[in-house]
């Protein structure tokens, strides 16, 4: 928007040969004409430089171009944040997301773990077991393990994991593909994640079960929190998170071969 307005002023000036003002500094028509010989780009740079030295704005004589002010830019950023921002509430086995969110998930038997990935832009407010606020581009991947016993049975345990977009006109989210939820996304019977990957490009303040951090810039963390008396096999590639393998064998009375068979070569 800034570039567009600047170019519009320059082109208009070059066409009409009119003079214009930058914060009260009136450029003489002879100066404009001299710069015209060097082309539009040159004049554009000159005008940009003048504006940067006079931040209160650029004003054309016939008032056809509105002034650019710091307050307008702040208003624009706040408005965009509110429009594109979202809220996430995670509590127990239920997750709620309001506002725009890019989302995909995979669950057995198609997947080898219970994986969900959410991407938020601009502003995200989190509450529930994780409280926080972030401004920027944020990605969260949560993975819950699949029990080895379920992989061995011929039937396999049917996943009761349920994701839905109740306020959407275009049906529920599709497993294994990117889905865009603009208003409301809900996850029910979500298994507790034992692996989390969180990345943020921007600013984040978070307090809770997943992270306790204040970060400015870029931050990417992964965290595995296995429970006691269990054996795990885990493979994760951030480029293909839905293909994550995360299997758990609960300790009972020996017999580690099932997990080794799943793991294959070390």
């Amino acid at each position, binding site marked *: 928007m800034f570039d567009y307005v600047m170019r519009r002023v320059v082109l208009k000036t070059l066409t009409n040969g009119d003079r214009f003002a930058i914060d009260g500094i009136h450029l003489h028509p002879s100066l404009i004409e001299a710069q015209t010989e060097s082309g539009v780009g040159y004049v554009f740079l000159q005008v940009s430089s003048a504006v940067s030295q006079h931040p209160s704005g650029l004003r054309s004589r016939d008032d056809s171009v509105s002034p650019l002010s710091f307050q307008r830019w702040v208003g624009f950023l706040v408005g965009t944040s509110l429009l594109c921002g979202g809220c996430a509430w995670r509590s127990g086995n239920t997750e709620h997301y309001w506002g725009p969110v890019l989302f995909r998930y995979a669950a057995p038997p198609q997947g080898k773990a219970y994986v969900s990935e959410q991407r938020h832009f601009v502003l995200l407010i989190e509450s529930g077991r994780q409280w926080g606020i972030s401004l920027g581009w944020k990605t969260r991947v949560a993975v819950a393990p699949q029990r080895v016993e379920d992989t061995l049975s011929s039937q396999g345990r049917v996943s009761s994991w349920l994701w839905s977009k109740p306020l959407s006109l275009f049906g529920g989210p599709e497993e294994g593909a990117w889905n865009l939820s603009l208003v409301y996304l809900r996850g029910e019977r979500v298994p507790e994640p034992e692996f989390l990957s969180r990345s943020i490009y921007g600013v984040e303040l978070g*307090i809770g079960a997943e992270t*306790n951090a204040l970060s400015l810039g870029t*931050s990417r963390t*992964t965290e*595995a929190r*296995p429970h006691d008396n269990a*054996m795990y096999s885990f493979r994760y590639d*951030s480029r293909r998170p839905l293909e994550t393998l995360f299997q758990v064998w609960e*300790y009972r009375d020996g017999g580690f071969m099932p997990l080794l068979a799943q793991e294959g070569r070390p």
Partner: protein
Amino acid sequence: MKMQWKSQVGRVLPVAVCALFVAGCQGYLVFTTATKAGLHISQQADQSPSALFGYKRAEVASIPANPKNASTTEDTYSVLATFCVRYDPLFSQSAEDSLQIRSVFATGMAAREAAKNPEMQSFFAAAALKQVLAPGKTEKKCF
């Protein structure tokens, strides 16, 4: 009105900062990897608070110790693990921002039993040897 607002911020801010550092002090096993650039203030479980300005890359395993002695039926928190992490930062030669993790690990009584199991011993021995780069091999791959 302005003074009241400042006063409220003055009360809430210290509480929020304390909560940030205290909330993470819980006793659970954690494997974590982190890449940070910029300003980062954090607190991981069972560790001191940290502040970073710049770039940092880390792989950390935090294993809480049980104050009770181990017995035949109770474990202090044994861990048996093989762990491979490969990370290509955004501006590396491969121009890919990717992270690969491969791990097999056992916790508690499962780790104690796995350590006694000959097949598991062979498995972990082979996994450990594979982590060492063979002669002429320059690239590390987890899978």
